[in-house]
């Protein structure tokens, strides 16, 4: 059986998310191994521009563009995705372990009796098959999971799990008509757009995270400045969120978001396991803490033992300078 790969693309501001391009890069390696095809599917309204970008990574880009798909709903999106999967018959369907991915894929997996593996961070090959890497217990253990040989695999991956490869040869764009089925039980009353942050916390390459040591909400502007210089985002520990210095949206850790940026800098964070579990997969970890015995130093690559209020202004200048040089 051919093991064609289909990647479900998510967009932000009408452009494909970085996490989706990562999946296409991973999908390319999988398709190469199985000598199969790689397709991407875009479902939404006004997604044709995104298709041009996506098309440089996939053999086929399937576009379902319809006004009625402007706002995501699992009911409408899954009905369209289901039809596409039926029609094109991939054996491997990849998505992002995002709010949308977590909402959508389980419903779809039931319809195809698929092997559903979610919140994964990597893959490898074992013999003729594919195996998926998934952290358990907040990253204390890594498991390798294989889908059944005859089953369709549906897997969702955390953002920042793969590097985005160079765009390649342009594929083919196929426009499909949508047969949208809405669930009659759900009526959307209102949608309040959130503050449009530059990058999503989970997709950011750079995160500077503040803990209780930041002392007050207004001091987070220090972190915001550094985040802006680096094109990244500001995160927070739970203590900070519970003190209402930052939104729950920004919380990193076991009961918040799991992130794996290229560079994470923790400022005034003690390094409780609950927090570590949400950022331990970052490529490089820096800790700034005045207490040399703070547990976070056990998890960090680099550490500065000092008062963050004196370090951060200097760090801001240094980072700015290094940015301007490059």
């Amino acid at each position, binding site marked *: 059986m051919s093991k064609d790969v289909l990647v479900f693309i998510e967009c932000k501001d009408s452009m494909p998310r970085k996490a989706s391009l990562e999946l296409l890069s991973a999908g390319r390696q999988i398709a190469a191994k199985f000598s199969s095809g790689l397709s991407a599917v875009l479902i939404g309204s006004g997604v044709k521009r995104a298709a041009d970008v996506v098309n440089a990574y996939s053999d086929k880009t399937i576009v379902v563009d319809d006004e009625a798909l402007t706002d995501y709903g699992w009911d409408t999106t899954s009905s369209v995705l289901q039809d596409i999967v039926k029609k094109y018959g991939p054996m491997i369907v990849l998505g992002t372990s995002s709010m949308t991915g977590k*909402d959508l894929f389980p419903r779809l997996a039931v319809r195809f009796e698929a092997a559903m593996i979610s919140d994964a961070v990597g893959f490898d090959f074992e013999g003729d098959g594919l195996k998926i890497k998934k952290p358990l*217990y907040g990253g204390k253990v890594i498991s390798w999971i294989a889908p*059944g040989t005859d089953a369709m695999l549906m897997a969702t991956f955390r953002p920042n799990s793969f590097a985005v490869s160079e765009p390649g040869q342009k594929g083919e764009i196929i426009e499909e008509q949508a047969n949208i089925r809405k669930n009659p039980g759900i009526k959307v009353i209102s949608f309040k757009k*959130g503050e449009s942050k530059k990058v999503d916390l989970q997709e950011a390459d750079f995160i500077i995270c503040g803990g209780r040591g930041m002392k007050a909400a207004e001091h987070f502007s220090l972190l915001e400045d550094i985040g802006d210089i680096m094109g990244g985002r500001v995160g927070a520990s739970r203590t900070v969120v519970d003190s209402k210095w930052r939104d729950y949206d920004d919380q990193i850790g076991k009961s918040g978001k799991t992130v794996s940026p290229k560079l994470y800098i923790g400022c005034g964070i003690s390094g409780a396991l609950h927090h570590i579990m949400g950022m331990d997969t970052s490529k490089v970890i*820096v800790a700034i803490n005045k207490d040399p015995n703070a547990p976070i130093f056990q998890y960090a690559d680099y550490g*500065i033992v000092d008062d963050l209020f004196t370090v951060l202004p200097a760090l801001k200048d240094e980072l700015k300078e290094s940015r301007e040089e490059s």
Partner: protein
Amino acid sequence: MNVLVFVKQVADTEARIIISSDQKSLEIENKYVVNFFDEFAVEEAIRVKEALKDVEITVCTFAPARATEALRTTIAMGADKAVRIDSSKFETDDPLIIARILAAYAKREGFDLILCGRQAMDDESANVGAMVAEFLNIPHVSQISRLSMLDPGRAEVENEIEGGKKVSEVALPALFTAQKGLNEPRVPLITGVMKAMKTEITVLDPASFETPFGAIDNGSSNIRVLSYELPAKRPSVRIIEGQTPRDKAKSLVKLLGDEAKVL
């Protein structure tokens, strides 16, 4: 009105986990708790009962005997009934099979509302809730931060989705998964704990009831765990020395650029 709450007992964050020498199994220290997000689901069910009165709350888990303790915690909080569907003969990591079993139970019992946590803290999969809803052919809303019951047979929920917050009106029966912030889960009172100790917990063998949503035996699983391993260890921390904070910041930025190559 029947409210069903699906809960999972998970290893505590502090629990020690040992990988067997053949890497095929895990030994988990006996420190278990009710899954963090499930507590919000239980609490919300109790609030629905307090508001509407004529409500019965059944908490259900698919788990081995150790989960009895987690069920008692939910009774102590204020749930009426607790059911453990025994997993000992059907041990599985496949969310599809777990959802088939829970959906079969829900169908058999009848329900107006199903609540569960937005994801389990141990595998962070976030699959079973929406899968149960799909099997039962009812709508679901993920990670709700507000629930108000409207009558008759409707609920208004708020949830976070990519890009903002959505408010929806949902016809019951429906399934909602709970996000942190939905409420403040209560700490059981001593009277609740006493009641929980005396409450009989029903144990069901999944083989004993009809499972209309597909096979549940281990052979029907589409997922196989091949091995477990420890995550790659980081080298120990390099503390940046320097006379002044500025010296330290300078050295750090240099190392991040030249050595770590992340700038």
